[in-house]
């Protein structure tokens, strides 16, 4: 069984190769996430300026940039959690409110109190609260979806575990499972690989690839430059404004990275070679 909600709109069988033709094959298809001229300021300090970007279905995209580049702000503003100064954001060609069921978000795990009285199963179940409303009961189908989401992130045997007793990597997997259970078409992840162990990293990449191969759009704020070419199809280089965006092979170049990081480039040359430079 696949974890997915019945889709109200048919999804086109759009597949963009990692070096795909941006804009040609997708002319008639709204991208999963389209950001136009988004600007955000905290007080008088600009966080992002005039960011435009488009994230396709069937692709894994990374948002990369130095600390303070506005990566998390971009996600938060796109998702309506920070009021923008200007700009427009479309999800599947419509507003977030209309597309909400197709969008799942995986926050940074440091943002919550893990001493909260809940088991792993309870946290994943929270991914279904919006769908269930106040009174509909959890049925066998819902339990099966929760079990399968936990299975996919390799946490099935921890369903009854207190969340306070989890390791950082396990916490991250639980958050991913809470998103999976929604059966969305667009997954937005804020630093999903921050501070997790190697096994979790591999497990998360596997799950995200599975989503991508099933046609979903995956967008992750990412900080580890070395893994960008291996894991991602497309990359957005951000330093308050967009430095470059597009398929990794064309975009993830020494010149673009140097511009993004202001010359303080910390990446092994072999990673760039892997990207084709």
């Amino acid at each position, binding site marked *: 069984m696949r974890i997915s909600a019945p889709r109200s709109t048919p999804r086109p069988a759009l597949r963009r190769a990692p070096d795909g033709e941006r804009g040609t094959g997708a002319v008639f298809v709204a991208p999963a996430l389209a950001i136009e001229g988004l600007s955000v300021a905290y007080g008088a300090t600009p966080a992002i300026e005039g960011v435009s970007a488009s994230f396709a279905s069937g692709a894994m995209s990374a948002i990369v940039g130095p600390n303070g580049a506005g990566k998390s702000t971009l996600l938060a503003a796109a998702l309506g959690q920070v009021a923008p100064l200007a700009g427009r954001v479309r999800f599947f060609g419509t507003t977030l409110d209309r597309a909400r*069921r197709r969008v799942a978000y995986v926050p940074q795990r440091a943002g919550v109190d893990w001493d909260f009285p809940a088991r792993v199963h309870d946290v994943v179940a929270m991914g279904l609260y919006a769908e269930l409303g106040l009174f509909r009961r959890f049925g066998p189908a819902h339990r099966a979806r929760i079990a399968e989401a936990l299975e996919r992130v390799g946490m099935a045997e921890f369903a009854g575990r207190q969340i306070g007793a989890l390791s950082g990597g396990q916490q991250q997997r639980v958050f991913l499972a809470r998103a999976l259970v929604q059966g969305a078409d667009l997954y937005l992840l804020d630093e999903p690989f921050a501070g997790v162990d190697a096994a979790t990293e591999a497990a998360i990449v596997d799950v995200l690839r599975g989503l991508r191969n099933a046609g979903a759009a995956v967008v992750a704020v990412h900080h580890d430059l070395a893994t960008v070419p291996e894991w991602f199809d497309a990359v957005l280089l951000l330093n308050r404004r967009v430095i470059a965006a597009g398929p990794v092979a064309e975009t993830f170049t020494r010149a673009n990275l140097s511009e993004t990081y202001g010359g303080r480039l910390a990446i092994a040359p072999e990673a760039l070679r892997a990207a084709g430079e």
Partner: protein
Amino acid sequence: MLIEALTLQLGYNATLVTLGAACLGAAAGMAGVFLVLRRRALVSDALAHATLPGLAAAFLAMSALGLSGRWLPGLMAGSALAALAALWAIQALAGRTRLPEDAAIGAVLSVFFGMGVVLMTVVQTIPGGQQAGLESFLLGATSGMLRAEALTIAAGALVVLGAVLALRRPMSAVAFDARHAAIAGLNPRAADAAITLLALAVTVTGLKIVGLVLIVALLIVPPATARLWTGRIDRLLLLAAAFGAAAGWIGAAASAAAADLPTGPLVVLSAAAMFALSLLVAPGRGVIARALARARLVRGLAAGGAR
């Protein structure tokens, strides 16, 4: 005497009051769970203290209209309005100035309570004001409580219980991770408003029995006690309701047995006794259980080191 009170053998009115106090305790325990999880306990204390000017103003207004100033629903409505005004003041201060929220809470709590004390002095000066017994709303009293008043309190408590059960999903999702809840389509502002308003409803309902100075303890202590016993939110709600109900029951019964004592402190001390006992003996989080677990760990290390 206390035994008779605890086993509901002190007559119809005392029984009704004891049951009303138990309902109130259950509602406070359940509503308090979300208050504690969302870290809004201080706000609820400010709301409780801010009811005093509303209480006195409602008494003065009803007296001026030629009605009985002691009519409980009228006093509850006045208290609720004053508490809402305090809530608005806290949000305006914290949201539109650079004042941190705890400073805003402290300022609003003391200013509203100060206004209340002044208005209570005015109440003393009007005819009938000295016999109004409004002071009993500070620390709570059950002696001389009317049947209708006990029923009003029980009904209010049951409404709160029903609302907590209906809203428990969005309130717990928002308490755990408000941003994720918002993006998933739940409304964190509505959930937060519900958490605060339910605490307000408990406060206003409990004014007569527990009093506005100590009602916050009935919202906070039972959830804290329950947290020592369980890590699951569904059981936490049930246990907090049970501890709260027990505290209300014991406190009201003790107060019926010793009519000179205000009820609020007795209710709060009952709740505190349950907390202290739980802190000692609860499995997992209790002091004894943790000491034993630690001792086992040390023994294991010693055995391993001797190898």
